[in-house]
């Protein structure tokens, strides 16, 4: 299992190297991996269909008792099969579609890494691992949307998708942590059985809202749906894979996965039901309004994601059955339709439905599969989409609450979907042949394989609905419901209300399509109102983030070093003054007894040298004063028994003066820039600072909280260190690693100096 998840990553990192070496066959060869994974996952179907849940555990951080656990039940198996199955066709498809592109290797790196992340996401049992994979899909999605990074629009869309999903991801992380707190475990396998505890927990509402924020952004639910159509800037294989069949369903997956733990409450029903239904309606409306091939498909994906969310929210047996069936149906037809959209673009160079027509004769097979997939989208018998749609109608009619509202939404949406399906399935293929940029040909096998298999499966499953039903969907529904439920799928339900609703929506939808050329522009005129939509909100938030950080930077990083220093020192002074005044109100009294005259002289000279360096107007004087100060300090060290330090200070002082002479005299003389007012202010702060340091130093010499650790060094220097100079033994033995760090700093400073001088020499030459 670990290998299954990781193999995608392994191949991903080999891909940039392998791609140019494999040439045209690259798609077919890389396709072998997802295909093998599909077969491997499929081998679990019998076990999982019998209702068993498999757990795979690998030690990850054994010291901390953290394991990498994978959970394989009906739901994760369904997703794993979709990911690897559709992934196979996408990889093959991209081999031809992107052939000759400069970054094909990079594309394979990303798409394979995405596939592995997505597998990890749906298989993880550990919440932390799940979150990591979740974020990995966001990042790979970002890079894939921005694949054509030289286009500004692609970059902007990629960033938008990233910001929306990652902001949601952040909320999700918080929600998952709260969930683990409430449920007492980070393992999904344990959380799934502790639903009652979590639902009763005081944190239920906040954690639910946070998790839903994550899933709604990922699955493009209203009001976050706007990023998905923009994500169509990605190459078509990416749109087909990430933004219709897999990644955007990650949010749906998580909601379905957590249904046994979080679902069943009124809040759950209302939030998911209403937002899902709204998303469904808006998605289909926007799809009907658009004319771009990929735009229409993207909005119809929004519709499907809304439908799934709504069904999970309703949460009845019928609804859950409908949800898993709809999930499968949608992945099949939408994957196929997106790949067909890519074929149209590739063969004709046209991306707009209004300019397409009469392609049936040029590309009969593509037209055929487009027709089948579109029939499934419209929910027309005998396609699998019909089975799913009938179940959906039944579920919303039986919903425990808000049934009327969501039924109305569902019917309205279904009417528009029929029209959309007709636009996709009929318009490009029939009618008069419209001129195209390229002469269209039938697509090659690598492009056609995916649509062919997926569309055919849609038809096959429609005719034999119990084929996926009893093996896979019943196990998936069991996992979503958390308890055994009866799954019965059939093509023919008899004459009942759902069938009537289907028929009505079909009739109205076809009417809409008949008048599409009038309906669409009328709806498109409503775009004038879009500035009130949620995307505007996103733009406003982003703009305000930029302007806030701009003004913040202007304020805090004003570019004046002295104001930085002033701010730091003033803050320090305030804090120190506060502590001193509140805790140690008694000041130590000065004790001047027993000071030798020569000590006093040395200290006085050192202080005077410092003051002279500050006040003099001559640079030579200042450097000389610094030299005097340095030697004074050296003498102080020697006076107080620090021979090594004193010697070092003398030597360094000598070399420092040499260096200052070498450099400072190539700088101009002292200039007085500042006004006397600011000099007064700086002087005041400086004196205050110096005084505070003096005070603190006096206080620290009088307190001793802990015995000094030097005792150890003093006692062991001889026996352990075999040395009689304790300072040196500390430097080269006891604390050798410190010294090592210090000589590295010294070396770095020297190399830095060398580099700067070298650069300067080269500047001069050129």
């Amino acid at each position: 299992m670990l290998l299954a998840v990781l193999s995608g990553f392994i191949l991903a990192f080999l891909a940039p190297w392998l791609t140019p070496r494999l040439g045209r066959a690259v798609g077919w060869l890389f396709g072998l991996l997802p295909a093998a994974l599909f077969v491997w996952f499929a081998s679990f179907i019998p076990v999982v269909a019998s209702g068993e849940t498999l757990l795979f555990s690998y030690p990850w951080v054994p010291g901390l008792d953290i394991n990498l656990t994978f959970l394989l039940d009906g739901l994760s198996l369904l997703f794993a099969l979709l990911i690897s199955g559709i992934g196979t066709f996408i990889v093959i498809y991209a081999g031809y579609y992107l052939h000759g592109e400069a970054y094909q290797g990079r594309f394979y790196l990303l798409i394979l890494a995405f596939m592995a992340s997505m597998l990890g996401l749906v298989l993880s049992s550990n919440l932390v691992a799940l979150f990591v994979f979740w974020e990995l899909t966001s990042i790979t999605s970002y890079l894939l949307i921005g694949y054509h990074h030289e286009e500004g629009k692609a970059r902007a869309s990629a960033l938008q998708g990233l910001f929306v999903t990652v902001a949601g991801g952040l909320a999700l992380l918080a929600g998952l942590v709260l969930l683990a707190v409430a449920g007492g475990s980070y393992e999904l396998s344990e959380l799934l059985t502790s639903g009652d505890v979590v639902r009763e927990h005081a944190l239920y509402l906040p954690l639910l809202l946070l998790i839903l924020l994550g899933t709604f952004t990922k699955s493009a639910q209203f009001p976050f749906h706007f990023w998905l159509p923009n994500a169509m800037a990605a190459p078509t294989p990416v749109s087909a894979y990430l933004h219709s069949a897999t990644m955007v369903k990650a949010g749906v997956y998580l909601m379905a996965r957590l249904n046994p733990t979080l679902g069943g409450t009124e809040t759950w029903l209302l939030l998911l039901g209403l937002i899902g239904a709204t998303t469904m309606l808006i998605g289909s409306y926007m799809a009907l309004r658009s004319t771009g091939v990929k735009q229409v498909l993207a909005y119809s994906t929004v519709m499907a994601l809304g439908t799934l969310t709504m069904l999970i929210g309703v949460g009845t047996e019928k609804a859950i059955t409908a949800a898993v069936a709809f999930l499968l149906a949608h992945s099949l037809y939408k994957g196929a339709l997106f790949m067909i959209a890519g074929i149209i673009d590739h063969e004709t160079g046209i991306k707009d439905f209004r300019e397409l027509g009469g392609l049936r004769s040029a590309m009969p097979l593509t037209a055929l599969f487009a027709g089948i997939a579109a029939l499934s989208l419209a929910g027309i018998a005998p396609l699998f989409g019909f089975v799913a749609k009938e179940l959906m109608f039944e579920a919303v009619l039986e919903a425990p609450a808000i049934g009327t509202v969501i039924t109305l939404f569902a019917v309205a949406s279904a009417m528009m979907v029929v029209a959309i399906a007709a636009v996709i399935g009929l318009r490009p293929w029939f009618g008069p042949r419209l001129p195209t940029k390229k002469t269209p040909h039938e697509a090659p096998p690598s492009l056609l394989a995916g649509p062919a298999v997926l569309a055919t499966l849609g038809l096959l499953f429609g005719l034999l609905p119990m084929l996926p039903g009893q093996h896979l969907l019943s196990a998936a529904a069991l996992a979503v419901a958390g308890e055994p439920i009866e799954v019965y799928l059939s093509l023919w339900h008899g004459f009942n209300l759902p069938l009537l609703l289907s028929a009505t929506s079909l009739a109205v939808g076809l009417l809409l399509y008949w008048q599409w050329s009038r309906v669409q522009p009328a709806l498109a005129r409503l775009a004038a109102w879009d500035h009130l939509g949620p995307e505007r909100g996103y733009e406003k938030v982003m703009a305000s983030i930029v302007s806030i950080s701009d003004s913040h930077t202007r304020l805090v990083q004003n570019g004046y070093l002295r104001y930085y220093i002033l701010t730091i020192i003033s803050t320090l002074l305030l804090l120190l003054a506060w502590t001193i005044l509140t805790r140690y109100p008694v000041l130590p009294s000065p004790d001047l007894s027993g000071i030798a005259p020569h000590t006093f002289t040395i200290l006085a000279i050192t202080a005077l040298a410092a003051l002279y360096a500050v006040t003099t107007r001559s640079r030579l004087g200042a450097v000389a004063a610094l030299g005097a100060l340095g030697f004074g300090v050296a003498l102080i060290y020697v006076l107080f028994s620090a021979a090594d330090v004193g010697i070092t200070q003398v030597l360094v002082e000598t070399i420092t003066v040499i260096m200052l002479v070498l450099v400072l005299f190539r700088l101009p003389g002292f200039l007085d820039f500042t006004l006397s007012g600011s000099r007064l202010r700086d002087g005041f702060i400086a004196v205050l600072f110096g005084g505070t340091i003096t005070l603190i130093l006096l206080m620290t010499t009088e307190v001793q909280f802990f015995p000094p650790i030097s005792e150890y060094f003093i006692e062991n220097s001889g026996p352990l260190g075999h040395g009689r100079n304790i300072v040196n033994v500390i430097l080269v033995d006891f604390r050798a690693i410190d010294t090592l760090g210090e000589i590295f700093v010294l070396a770095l400073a020297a190399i830095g100096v060398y580099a700067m001088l070298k650069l300067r020499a080269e500047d001069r030459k050129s």
Partner: protein
Amino acid sequence: MEFLMASLVGILFASALYMMLRRSIVKLVIGLVLLSNAANLLIFTASGLGSGQPPLIPPGADVPVGAVSDPLAQALILTAIVIGFGVLAFAVVLIHRAYEVVGADDMDQMKDTDT
């Protein structure tokens, strides 16, 4: 004794800070030199001046005779002095380069990132 040393350290810190608040880069360098001396003396004084012997063990003995001054603080300051030199050298050359690029000994003309 501590009082005098503490006063000296205070004077050094005050001088250093005052110089670092000036606009002239040369003064900034002088401030840096003062600051590193001040910091070293601060640690030295805080470790206790006492009247101990140098931290040396007489030949033939295993431990020093009588009280010795704190060897750890001395080791710390010793490396700090050498590193201080390295960092000062780096700062001086950096400032010199900046002066060459900007053409003025004025910090206020170095506040833009793109020159």
